[in-house]
């Protein structure tokens, strides 16, 4: 794979140079360079291979794209602007997109935060009472199964602003996975641990924060990560429908003007944002579950 990466990178470098796309040529060489360093740093063979493989795929896609759109002009330039143009556009649009990110983060942050703050305590309460669990089950089954996207038009009609409507929709998408996983997290805490805790005569708040919450944490995090993905899905869906700013709106707006260069740039940017967010989430997860490091690493 190492040699394949080198060959493809050089081909892309040549293709970019031939078309006087100097930044792209630079990128063609920078990517294998970075990859080599990362592969050196990787401790496990598996990880090393993965780094090289994914770089090879990226270089190959860029090469095909470059050849088709720039060197041989086979593709429609409106639908497939050449990579060099996208690269330039990406940096030119970065300011606007960051502003969009700010607006989207506000929506996502408040709705997702609200979902965590409501779903985790509710899930712990329901999880620790057999009776509440039996009462809540049919609701979570039916309501949790409704795709929250269907609420969007009604929420827009019902709630005073687009902002509140989208917060509601994102909240309802993130709530159920977090809630259901919190409940099952509490239920799966071993009985002897709960009995041990009961014998210690802890205060209610201590019992909640030091026993139930951390006991359910592995499952809560599974739910929270699902909830985060759903939130992002619903955020962009809501913005496609009614927003005047934000990342989803950015993509939708420029596709209305058939400005597909900016559409691609927007999609790439969203990809980068989601990836960074999930990376941060995984860091947090590792930190919160560090006590299990010995068995899972």
């Amino acid at each position: 794979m190492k040699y394949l990466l080198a060959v493809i990178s050089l081909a892309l470098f040549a293709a970019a140079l031939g078309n006087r796309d100097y930044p792209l040529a630079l990128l063609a060489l920078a990517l294998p360079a970075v990859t080599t360093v990362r592969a050196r740093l990787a401790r496990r063979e598996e990880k090393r291979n993965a780094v090289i493989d994914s770089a090879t795929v990226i270089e190959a896609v860029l090469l095909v794209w470059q050849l088709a759109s720039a060197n041989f002009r086979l593709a429609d330039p409106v639908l497939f602007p050449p990579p060099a143009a996208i690269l330039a556009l990406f940096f030119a649009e970065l300011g606007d997109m960051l502003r969009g990110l700010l607006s989207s983060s506000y929506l996502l942050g408040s709705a997702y935060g609200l979902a965590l703050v409501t779903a985790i305590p509710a899930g712990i309460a329901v999880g620790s009472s057999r009776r509440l669990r039996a009462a809540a089950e049919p609701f979570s089954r039916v309501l949790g199964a409704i795709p929250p996207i269907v609420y969007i038009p009604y929420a827009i009609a019902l709630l005073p602003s687009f902002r509140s409507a989208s917060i509601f929709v994102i909240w309802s998408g993130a709530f159920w996975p977090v809630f259901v996983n919190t409940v099952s997290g509490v239920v799966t805490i071993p009985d002897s641990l709960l009995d041990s805790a009961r014998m210690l005569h802890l205060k209610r708040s201590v019992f909640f924060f030091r026993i139930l919450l951390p006991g359910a944490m592995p499952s809560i995090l599974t739910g929270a990560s699902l909830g985060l993905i759903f939130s992002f899905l619903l955020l962009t869906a809501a913005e496609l429908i009614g927003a005047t700013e934000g990342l989803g709106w950015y993509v939708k707006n420029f596709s209305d003007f058939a400005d597909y260069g900016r559409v691609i740039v927007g999609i790439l940017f969203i990809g980068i944002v989601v990836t960074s967010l999930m990376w941060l989430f995984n860091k947090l997860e590792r930190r919160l579950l560090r006590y299990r490091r010995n068995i899972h690493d």
Partner: protein
Amino acid sequence: MIECRHIDFSYDSKTILQGIDLNIENGEFLCILGQSGCGKSTLLRLLAGLERPSAGEIRIDGEPVAGPDRHCSVVFQDYSLFPWMTTGANLTLALHAAYPDKNRKEVKALAESYLETVGLGGSFGQYPEALSGGMRQRAAIARALASPSGILLMDEPFGALDPVNRALLQELVRNLHRDAGKRRTVIFVTHDIDEALYLGTRLVVFSSSPGRIIADEGNRISRRYDRTALFRQPEIKALQQKIPAVYRSDMLERLAKRSEVRNGGGI
């Protein structure tokens, strides 16, 4: 002093314990012997106040047990320690709950001294997952000792340990009990007869389904000898013979009863 009067316990209309009468003096080391499913762990849960008896009454020092009892601390076979806290935090959690007036520093020092007692000095900052099974049980015992209760309830605490660790921990518990004198009562559930003979100053044998007491033997000599010498004593040898015989005759009796019922129903 623990008094159990005519304890019955049923669950899902199945009788688990029937007519348990048992008085336990302060400072006793009582081993409850019985086969799996005989309700010996259930009795422990009743004593701890984690379950309520269907009939009868349990009193500790004259007070009826209602809800998780302050006189008792528990060590289970597994999962006693909270895995998301370090060993030290497991102890300080219990200590803070037991002594709300003590400050952080005092509690930490106390926790460290209890860990020292069970031979775990230096593992304050380690997570239970990083400890071996034997060390984990040591830490669980330390946490149980840390609560000011005088009664230590142990539910097959060494059942999952390898023979070496098992012997070491038996030694530890035996010494802890000996050094505490009348201040600490231990009730220890096991199905290992030799373990019960080595640890217990008194042995109670349970029959299976429903659990009843079928033998109640004092074992006063158990503290006078070390392990090898103890098992050479004629009294201990006699008990080694007697307890399995009690099991056998109880089983035969129940089989006879069952066939009687069957025959009676047939005629």
